[in-house]
């Protein structure tokens, strides 16, 4: 269950960005691929625990999922493939490069003005 460690790291990073912008965090958007080693349902579950401990009880996590896609180094064709069979859909070669599917990315944050902080104009 390394998802909890990942959530803590994610929230630390989000906090730094929010602090730099003097804002609160409404939503954290992450992009997860099947080959990242992170399970989206476990990440969501871990996040609901970690956000309390990190002092962000109202922050939501939005998980975008990518699919495993490869490009064949032999014939050049692109295919969408299962997680454990990275074989070219056209020529069946395993000499392929991954073009998506291993992402574990903090994509964006939706920031909101901190209600307690009043910013004076000028």
């Amino acid at each position: 269950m390394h998802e909890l460690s990942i959530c803590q790291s994610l929230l630390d990073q989000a906090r730094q960005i929010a602090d730099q912008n003097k804002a609160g965090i409404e939503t954290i958007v992450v992009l997860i691929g099947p080959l990242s080693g992170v399970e989206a349902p476990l990440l969501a579950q871990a996040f609901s625990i970690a956000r309390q401990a990190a002092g962000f009880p109202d922050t939501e996590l939005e998980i975008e999922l990518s699919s495993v896609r490869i490009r064949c180094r032999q014939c050049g064709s692109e295919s969408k493939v299962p997680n454990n069979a990275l074989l070219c859909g056209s020529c069946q070669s395993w000499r392929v490069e991954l073009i998506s599917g291993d992402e574990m990315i903090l994509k964006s944050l939706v920031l909101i003005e901190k209600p307690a902080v009043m910013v004076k104009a000028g």
Partner: protein
Amino acid sequence: MCETCGCTITPGNAHLVTDEGHLAHTKDGKASIEVLSSLLHENNHMAAHNREHFNRHNVLALNLMSSPGSGKTALLEATIKALGSKYRIGVVEGDLETENDAQRIRAQGVPAVQITTGQACHLDAHMVHDALHELDLGSLDIVFIENVGNLVCPASFDLGHHANITLLSVTEGDDKPAKYPVMFRGSDLVLLTKSDLLEYLDDFDTQKAKNHVRHLANAAPVLTLSSRREETLKPWFNWLDAMVKAHQKNQNIAPTMQPDGMALHSASTS
């Protein structure tokens, strides 16, 4: 080392990085800020620091991963016995509890630091960093990091090592690479261990295991060996020799995990 893209940028999502508009405002006036860094940004940062530390002392660091009981410590014992006079070896041991493995290694006459992780199912770069304070890197050539026995979680954490070695014992089943694709896709070397037991098993086919690794688009060498049969260890020692030489020539060796992310990062900073 990639701090901004987190080494997870592939051609499929590269457009996200190159798009304009770092900070865009949504319709209702909220600010949406684009970040695009690895979820393990802090860990990766520390891992890069560890790698620099190893490189400064010209030490090759290797991360050993496998399920519990597949023979990581036994392999290290046999390796130290055979190569202990050729290379100055140090070991970092990761387990949930006990000093047992570190004691086994110390009994071979080499320094070992035990990390007990408590409930954590993997080592991370910070734990390894702390352990390195207890090793005199200046007097070592190779540091083996024996990760927590687990085929899932350790795969996600860069420790600052130079290569990933995954052990699969022949009693575990030849389809493990298909079951744990994240771990085996990121392996720079796969060792099929306990080969002395192959004659008693009718359901482990080394070629099938190798094919499963290839089906993850991984061209890493797959070697079959037994730590109890020194004559089977030669190819493993040859691989080690080659790695030590390669690292001496080029310190920029890193686990072959995210070459596309690395390429994009170096392009954007050049």
